[in-house]
């Protein structure tokens, strides 16, 4: 679980993205308990305040919820998970398309290339 953080973007946003991806990809299952702020901060080598900010934001959008004394947990809301999965996918696709367009590829060409690719 390497936390590759870019230096020119706010860290808390990047932390949010990483945790979100971990949730969607199944590293954290719905209902799982998330490690404490300290543990995550130490793992990511970031300031605990920053990690706290990221986790609070994830709580705010509903991916995580906290129970007063027991800690933070991943949501079990399936709708939420589906929406998030789609959002991440859209973000990836948009970023990919942007890159391809810069290289001069059109949408049709891109779709053909994808279709012709062999399955891994």
């Amino acid at each position, binding site marked *: 679980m390497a936390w590759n953080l870019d230096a*020119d*973007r*706010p*860290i808390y946003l990047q932390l949010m993205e990483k945790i979100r991806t971990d949730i969607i990809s199944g590293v954290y299952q719905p209902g799982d308990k998330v490690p404490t702020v*300290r543990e995550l901060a*130490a793992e990511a080598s*970031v*300031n605990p305040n920053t990690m706290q900010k990221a986790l609070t934001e994830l709580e705010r959008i509903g991916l995580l919820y906290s129970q007063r004394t027991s800690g933070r947990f991943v949501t079990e809301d399936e709708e939420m998970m589906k929406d998030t999965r789609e959002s991440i996918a859209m973000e990836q696709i948009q970023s990919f398309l942007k890159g391809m367009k810069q290289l001069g590829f059109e949408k049709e060409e891109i779709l053909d290339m994808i279709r012709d690719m062999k399955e891994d």
Partner: protein
Amino acid sequence: MEYLLESNHLCKKFGSLMALQDINLRITRGKIIGLLGPNGSGKSTLIKIINGLMTPSSGELTVNGRTPGVETKKIVSYLPERTYLNEWMKVYELLDYFEDFYEDFRRERAEQMLSNLRISIDDKLKNMSKGTKEKVQLILVMSRDADLYVLDEPIGGVDPAARDYILKTIIGNYNENATVLLSTHLISDIENILDEVIFLQYGQIRFHRSVDEIRSQEGKSIDQLFREVYRC
């Protein structure tokens, strides 16, 4: 609001040289703050004043409302850039020493960290490598439950693995009541753990901003901003 550290119109002169000019600082608790600036910017002078190793020429600086003195030394834990320990002492003697003079010293924490790094408490400092000596100093300083930690170049001249350990130690030690003031020029290595940065230049504060604010507003890393600011 009560600040952990506050300075008002702090100035320090050496003959005709103004090492610090009109420094107005407000530092709150629960933060990890980077004190950045090239050599000669006044960083060491400011750090010495905070620790009571030097007195201001004019203006004032207070820690927890008090001028640097015996009471502030009880709550400020300082890691200087140099080896400040008696090299003939063995590690356990140093533990005894810190335990004797600092009420907030947590010996078990220190012993745990030393054993994590496989440093024997029977070793003499003299027989250790430079890197190991620095780790011992850091462990002693971070094992205190201080309100303000002042670390001067804590990761300079240390190998990357040790650097990671040191950063993780600083992070792990974090509590909302204390603040860590880190002075360094190895910015890219530490900027991920900073809440705020203070840029010093020619004895004055260029700015004191939050790291997130800089990154989102300027779209740059602190390291990049530093290079730009200090280019001219």
